[in-house]
């Protein structure tokens, strides 16, 4: 990949990054000093307030994928992707906190659960559900983590022109994350998230204001996009969109290929999937009480609206800028440079800030935001992976070996798992295909939602959760997601081309609307249906663990 520009002040960026790393490591040290036992390493309950919970949730939720990956997609597909911002706020925050968060916190506290897998296992009194969730985390999450890491490092290396130092940036970022997660546990992760969220917030606010200033205001910017589309006379050639695209300020025509891609893959796939993210569920359980969760809603919603809303509003407006400056639309311009949609936002930032006062500072602030967005997500994922191995898997293994079913705590083992998997993630970065961020995000969120969302909801709202229904729902959700992803969906089948090996075609029905339908749209209803049918057939199945605990809800 060629460097995008030599316009970045590397000295200034180096100084800002060095200061940031020092503060990050200091917060890691703070976490280390405040982590006296394994429970504090896992949850840090009573050590975090609503501000930290809100910013940590927001920063973990929004990786670099949200800013540059999906921001670039809005430059191509237009403002209809603002529905994803709405779903991030509505499903990913309001519903997540009010419908799932409070009950998760209360049930987790009642059952003594410290992780998502632990919660599901204890709620259903099922080692197999806990083990399955752990396996899902240990198999899928490192791939997602690697996609986030690789995306962040790729962008950083290309934007700064430091492509020759790709390996050093990759290893350096991984080391910083590993050090503060290994030693500081969840406390360091959450405090660092809050710092990183603050940087992201300022960075995106500046970018939004500068963009509106360039276009001459909100209305003028939107009208310029309408004019650009009028000039195209409906010609979508070279725009990177499918038939059904109606311009950047309009939603695509219902039922078309473009509509299926935008609505089922980008909007619903990612929006709904956020509800069952193991790394986010832990944020609810770390709250002291419901009041803290209520308070954190305000800060979290403003943060997500600003960061995601700014990225998705600026994305389409980049077309106006690039057309003014180069006579080409965003996708055309970046394609002419040999770069993909992931680089539309970074290239725009570099160019738009090049002629303004303190432009260098803002470019460096954006680059720092990019690092923050990446490592806030990576650190949360690495912590989740580490405790899935060092706490959940270890407890399952020891319980089986000793015959005594209980939780086994080993802070050293958690740390060991984090180190081992961090190395694995770095290895993945070298073997994974390019331009994988948005797809890997969608697949990880999709498969966890299809497999676990009905079972998670059921255990929170049922007085007597039905284990058989949960296992069947998990099985059907996972199997149907995998089958659709491997044999039907054109976007996901490229990951593991089994269909091509068996049939010679990449998917079973190429060219049809089904090839652009996200697996989650099929598998989640099947998973829910399975649970409902079994619940209706088996009215009541005793759950020994809840009876022992006198757990009503």
């Amino acid at each position, binding site marked *: 990949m060629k460097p995008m520009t030599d316009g970045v002040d590397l000295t200034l960026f180096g100084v800002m990054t060095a200061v940031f790393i020092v503060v990050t490591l200091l917060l890691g040290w703070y976490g280390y000093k405040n982590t006296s036992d394994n429970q504090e390493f896992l949850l840090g309950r009573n050590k975090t307030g609503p501000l930290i919970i809100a910013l940590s949730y927001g920063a973990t939720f929004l990786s670099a994928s949200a800013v540059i990956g999906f921001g670039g997609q809005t430059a191509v597909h237009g*403002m209809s992707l603002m529905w994803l911002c709405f779903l991030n706020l*509505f499903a990913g*925050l309001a519903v997540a906190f009010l419908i799932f968060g*409070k009950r998760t916190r209360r049930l987790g506290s009642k059952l003594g659960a410290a992780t998502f897998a632990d919660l599901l296992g204890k709620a259903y009194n099922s080692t197999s559900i806990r083990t399955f969730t752990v396996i899902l985390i240990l198999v899928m999450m490192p791939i997602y983590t690697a996609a986030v890491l690789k995306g962040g490092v790729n962008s950083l290396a290309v934007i700064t022109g430091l492509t020759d130092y790709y390996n050093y940036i990759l290893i350096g970022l991984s080391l910083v994350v590993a050090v503060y997660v290994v030693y500081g546990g969840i406390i360091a992760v959450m405090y660092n998230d809050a710092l990183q969220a603050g940087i992201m917030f300022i960075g995106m606010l500046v970018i939004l204001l500068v963009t509106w200033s360039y276009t001459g205001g909100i209305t003028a910017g939107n009208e310029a996009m309408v004019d650009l589309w009028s000039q195209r006379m409906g010609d979508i050639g070279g725009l990177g969109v499918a038939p059904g695209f109606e311009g950047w*300020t309009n939603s695509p025509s219902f039922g078309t290929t473009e509509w299926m891609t935008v609505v089922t893959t980008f909007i619903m796939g990612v929006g709904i999937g956020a509800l069952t993210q193991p790394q986010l569920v832990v944020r609810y359980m770390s709250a002291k009480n*419901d009041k803290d969760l209520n308070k954190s809603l305000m*800060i979290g919603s403003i943060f997500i*609206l600003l960061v995601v*809303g700014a990225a998705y509003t600026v994305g389409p407006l980049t077309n106006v800028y690039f057309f003014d400056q180069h006579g080409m639309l965003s996708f055309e311009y970046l394609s002419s440079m040999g770069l993909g949609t992931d680089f539309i936002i970074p290239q725009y930032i570099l160019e738009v800030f090049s002629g303004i006062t303190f432009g260098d500072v803002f470019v460096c602030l954006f680059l720092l935001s990019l690092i923050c967005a990446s490592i806030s997500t990576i650190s949360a994922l690495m912590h989740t992976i580490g405790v899935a191995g060092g706490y959940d898997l270890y407890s399952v293994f020891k319980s089986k070996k000793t015959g005594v079913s209980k939780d086994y705590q080993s802070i050293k083992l958690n740390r060991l798992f984090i180190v081992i998997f961090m190395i694995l993630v770095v290895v993945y970065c070298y073997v994974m295909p390019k331009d994988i961020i948005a797809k890997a995000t969608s697949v990880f969120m999709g498969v966890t939602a299809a497999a676990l969302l009905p079972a998670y909801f059921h255990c929170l709202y049922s007085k007597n959760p039905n284990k058989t229904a949960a296992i069947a729902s998990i099985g059907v959700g996972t199997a149907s997601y995998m089958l659709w992803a491997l044999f039907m969906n054109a976007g996901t089948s490229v990951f593991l081309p089994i269909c091509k090996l068996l049939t010679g075609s990449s998917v079973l029905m190429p060219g049809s609307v089904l090839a652009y339908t996200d697996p989650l749209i099929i598998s989640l209803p099947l998973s829910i249906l399975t649970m409902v049918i079994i619940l209706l057939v088996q009215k009541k199945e005793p759950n020994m663990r809840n009876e022992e605990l006198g757990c009503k809800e």
Partner: protein
Amino acid sequence: MSILGLTDPWVIGAYVGCILTVVFCVAYSILKGKDSDEGDEAND
């Protein structure tokens, strides 16, 4: 009808939905965060 240069009701709806959700979250946070003690440790 044009609002800030936008005419597509779905796009306008997405922005309105975002703003209303934030307004709801802020209001809920202020009202419930002040006096709510539902589900505190005492109840667990």
